[in-house]
């Protein structure tokens, strides 16, 4: 009984983490249609940076924010200097981001070596709270809380602010949006920075839980991909539901079919592709 509850708590925590990772991917890939294969690399590099900051005794939250800021700058540079020149050309964009992903992976291997890094859970987030006779680890709950906060903030931003309206306008019809005076190009850079920052933030949040190791980038990238395809491209609600679905599937799959846990993750994506190609919450694009 208790094992299942613990699995459920872990699943929710992983779901929260996946949402932090894939919400940015949903904005970049789903809304802006940029096949950003460096998203997993932002996660990994962000996590490594965060671990290094923590090593220097910086506060956990500050480390996460600093790392997110660094990735936002890097993401912005990549978007401005490289991706911008390839607007609308899918294949070159894929190759460019793939090339960058390989470079980042190799640089990380050079700097942080091949050994896994696992920072201690910050002291004020250690321990567990007791409710209904069950102990919940605080850190897992904190991840969930942060994910919910980010989800609400993103939802408010995209659906209820002027900025969000401008982004949606730029995505739906860039030419007309420009005509009415929206600086689409700057907005897209901003969204790209935001996505990269969210990935890095997720990386630092996940570090005490997943640890950081070479190959993490290409492990996380497909997960973000599954979540976005499952939820429907460009749908934040879809990303949220997809993240928790995958979180549950991963933990319960790991417990019940350890050999096939990784493969089981892809099953809902395949089902969705066959039965509902636009994703659970995606809208049909004509």
């Amino acid at each position, binding site marked *: 009984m208790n094992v299942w509850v613990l699995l459920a708590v872990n699943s929710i925590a992983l779901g929260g983490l996946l949402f932090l990772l894939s919400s940015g991917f949903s904005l970049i*890939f789903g809304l802006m*249609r940029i*096949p950003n294969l460096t998203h997993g690399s932002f996660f990994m590099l962000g996590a490594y940076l965060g671990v290094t900051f923590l090593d220097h005794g910086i506060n956990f939250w500050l480390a996460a924010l600093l790392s997110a800021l660094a990735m936002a700058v890097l993401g912005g540079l990549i978007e401005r200097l*490289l991706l911008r020149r*390839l607007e609308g050309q*899918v*294949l*070159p964009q*894929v*190759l*460019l981001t*793939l*090339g*960058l*992903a*390989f*470079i980042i*992976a*190799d*640089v990380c291997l*050079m700097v942080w070596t091949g050994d896994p890094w696992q920072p201690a859970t910050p002291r004020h987030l250690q321990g567990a709270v007791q409710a209904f006779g069950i102990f919940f680890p605080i850190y897992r709950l904190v991840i969930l809380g942060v994910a919910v906060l980010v989800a609400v903030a993103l939802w408010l931003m995209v659906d209820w602010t002027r900025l969000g309206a401008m982004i949606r306008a730029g995505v739906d019809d860039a030419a007309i949006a420009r005509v009415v005076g929206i600086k689409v190009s700057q907005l897209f850079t901003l969204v790209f920075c935001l996505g990269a920052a969210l990935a890095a933030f997720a990386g630092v949040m996940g570090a005490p839980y997943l640890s950081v190791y070479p190959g993490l980038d*290409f492990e996380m990238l*497909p997960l973000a*991909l*599954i979540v976005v*395809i499952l939820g429907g491209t460009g749908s934040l609600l879809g990303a949220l539901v997809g993240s928790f679905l995958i979180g549950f599937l991963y933990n319960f799959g790991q417990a019940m079919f*350890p*050999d*096939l*846990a*990784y*493969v089981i993750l*892809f099953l809902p*994506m*395949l089902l969705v*592709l*066959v039965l509902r*190609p636009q994703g659970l919450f995606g809208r049909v694009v004509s």
Partner: protein
Amino acid sequence: MREAYLRYVAVAVALLCLVSLPVWIGNAYYINIASQILLFAVFALALNVLVGYGGLVSLGHAGLFAIAGYAGALMLQAGHGHLVSDLAAIAVTLAASAVFAVLALRSTGIGFLMITLALGQIVWGVAYRWASLTNGDNGINVNSRPAPFGLSLAGAEAFYFASLIVFLLAVVTMVLFVRSPFGASLRGTRDQARRMTALGYNVWLIRFLAFLFSGFWSGVAGLLFIYYNQFVSPQVAALQASAEVLLMVISGGTATLLGPIAGAAIVVVMKNVVSAYIVRWNLVLGVIFIAIITFMPEGLVPGSVRLWRLGWGALRTRASVPSLRVQGDGAP
């Protein structure tokens, strides 16, 4: 007329070079590299069917390559003969290609690419995590090479000739494919999918069959690879492997016959040379990707042709410049 004649001469010279290669190279190490180039050229040609002629960029082809390799290796491990194992491996690869195609062709463009990427990762996941079947990270050894018609392929030279025959077969089928009505209709679906539908072509079916054709040759390349390497591990199915073969296609030039072959040669040689000096192959791979996109986006073969024409044109105009000047005011 003259160009066609030149082309026959070039093909004959290339064939002669390929056949006599072991004689003038001599060293087994270099012959092995040549075999590697040939087998990866088969793989790159297979991917080029989709990327170049179909306009469908797959990032999961290493999955098909690995499925053939693993199926062959597992059958051999179970004690089956080479012929049975190879046929079974090709059949499994074709079935997997059909599944890949049905799923990935729900979409085109970025969607196709992302779905193939995910499918490739599934294959990697099975190879890496399902240890009771695939022996996980330790991989599977292939203890012997086949001996068709009693000719042993154990030596580097014999294996080179076997690879060469497979490679030539692949090239011939590619030439036939490109020139066939089917090849033309595939190019049609790449350029004008909607118009092809209006003309009554079944665009989905054309793409599906092209995927099977591509999957078949990827499988053949995968089998060649396990016989060459006599070992298969999850590394073969990794995203890096899919990216490498895509680099071969793109660096050489998509939708050309020579491009993927040249690309395979470049990548294999570079990988061997770079690995000999530094361990940072992935870094170099990434830099090459970015350099090609920035400087020669159409690929090395068409890019070189363009530069060659440009240079040739410049040379001709320069040659004609003095005569113009003589006709003119005679200034130096």
